[in-house]
């Protein structure tokens, strides 16, 4: 579904990604894991065209995203849950969902998808009139995921969904991610919390200083010495 080949990108003279290639097939859940500063967020920003590539290519369902503006990416079926949720704090939960359905095609199905999100996260129905800025961290994450689902995406990009949340909340976030995958969404998730994320995804890539260092199924990576020593502290 999504393919990156030799992607290089950065900010000004600072290069963050060096020839990254990876692939996400339809129905798969894939993680990009790695330490802080490895370029994980930059990778998602490059896919969403929030930053330009200096080399390489991103294709979605075989079509290049080269000439697609950032605000047109979502129409190709890619929705992103940004780092730190980034809800609109002074809009209500329901208005945040409305923003997720801004595309004309999504507006027509707003009612139906809202019910779907509320069924998935009943807490959001209770809080639908509440300002998003007043939600707890875990609730904000539900709202952010719900907002991304409102466009009816084929591919969901999740940027550090566990960042800044208490360990017990991280558990429930990972459960949420698992449910999203089970719902049939194709998911690409970027995460520092390697132990947790490898429990919920099919495959993962290890990103270090802007380069893919290794890849494999979750079981393979959990068993590899490299990951166990450097990241799991075993």
């Amino acid at each position, binding site marked *: 579904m999504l393919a990156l080949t030799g992607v290089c990108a950065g900010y000004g003279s600072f290069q963050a990604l060096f020839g990254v290639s990876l692939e996400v097939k339809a129905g798969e859940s894939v993680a990009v894991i790695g330490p802080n500063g490895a370029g994980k967020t930059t990778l998602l920003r490059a896919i*969403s*065209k*929030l930053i330009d590539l200096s080399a390489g290519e991103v294709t979605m369902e075989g079509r290049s995203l080269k000439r697609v*503006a*950032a*605000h*047109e*990416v*979502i*129409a190709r079926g890619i*929705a*992103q849950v*940004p780092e730190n949720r*980034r809800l*609109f*704090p*002074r*809009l209500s939960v329901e*208005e945040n969902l*409305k*923003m*997720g*359905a*801004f*595309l004309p095609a*999504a*507006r027509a199905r707003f009612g139906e998808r809202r019910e779907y999100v509320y069924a998935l996260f009943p807490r959001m129905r209770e809080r639908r009139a509440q300002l998003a800025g007043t939600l707890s961290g875990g609730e904000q994450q539900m709202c952010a995921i719900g*907002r991304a689902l409102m*466009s009816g995406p084929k591919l969901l990009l999740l940027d550090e969904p566990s960042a800044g949340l208490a360990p017990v909340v991280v558990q429930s976030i990972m459960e949420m991610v698992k449910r999203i995958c089970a719902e049939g969404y194709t998911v690409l998730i970027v995460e520092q919390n390697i132990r947790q994320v490898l429990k919920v995804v099919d495959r993962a890539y290890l990103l270090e200083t802007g380069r893919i260092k290794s890849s494999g199924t979750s079981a393979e990576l959990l068993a590899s010495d490299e990951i166990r020593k450097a990241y799991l502290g075993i």
Partner: protein
Amino acid sequence: MEIFDVFLLEAVLNGILLGGLLALLSLGLNLIFGVIDVVWICYAEMIMIGMYAVYALHVQQHWPLLPAMAAGIAIVALLGGLLHQFVIRPVLAAEPINQLLVTGGVLFFLQAAATLAFGIEFKNLGVKLPPVAIGEMSFSFPRIIAFAVALAGVAATYLLLTRTYLGTAIRAISQDRAIMPLMGVNPGRIFVVTSALGGALAGLSACLLVLQYDIHPAIGLSFGPITFLICVLGGLGNMLGGLVAAFIFAQFISVGGYLFAIEWGYVIAFAFFIAVMFWRPQGILGRK
């Protein structure tokens, strides 16, 4: 001494009528600032252009009044969009002081352009509407119209901002501009649409003012500062605060003017403004 002063009541009611108009005046400026974070110092001059547009179409081109007013609103809306596209957009990343100076330059440009086109003589529509008498009290009919239309304009803007996708996006963009593309929203387009909407509100204000006042190139100076002060008093960018401040300010002007002399109304209103700025620099309803 009378217990019930009918003329004081008249002054209070006139203050309410004035408050509606001031509320509409401040709304456009607050909308622009709240969303784009730029103050249009030339806002009152856009209203002046709208007044001349209605005058030119109605008096010089002999259009009926209502189509002339509709065209006036459209012209100022277009002007707002153009102002954003060609003047504000290039300085969006610049220092606030530079943004102020640029729109200040537009103020003098518009004044000079109006002087060239229409001269410095006072113009008016020649529309005379009789005052409305209720008991011993008398109210200007254009003011009553202005009040009703202004409130309708404020209500329509409120519904647009809260009930539509476009309006929700306008509110959202002021809270987090950087992630708007992830929602499928082109921020540049929302800015232009917001500017055109601010222009349309200026155009509507122009239609209401032109019924009450003579037009001249410097007329913007007679209500530009007060519009700006109302926005600051309410909390710059806070539309609800602007409404509250407009009605407070109007009461000071109207009742103060009645109790003392008409000029004293403004003195008291501005003294109140200064006092509030010491007490709440962020405005009555402003966020820190």
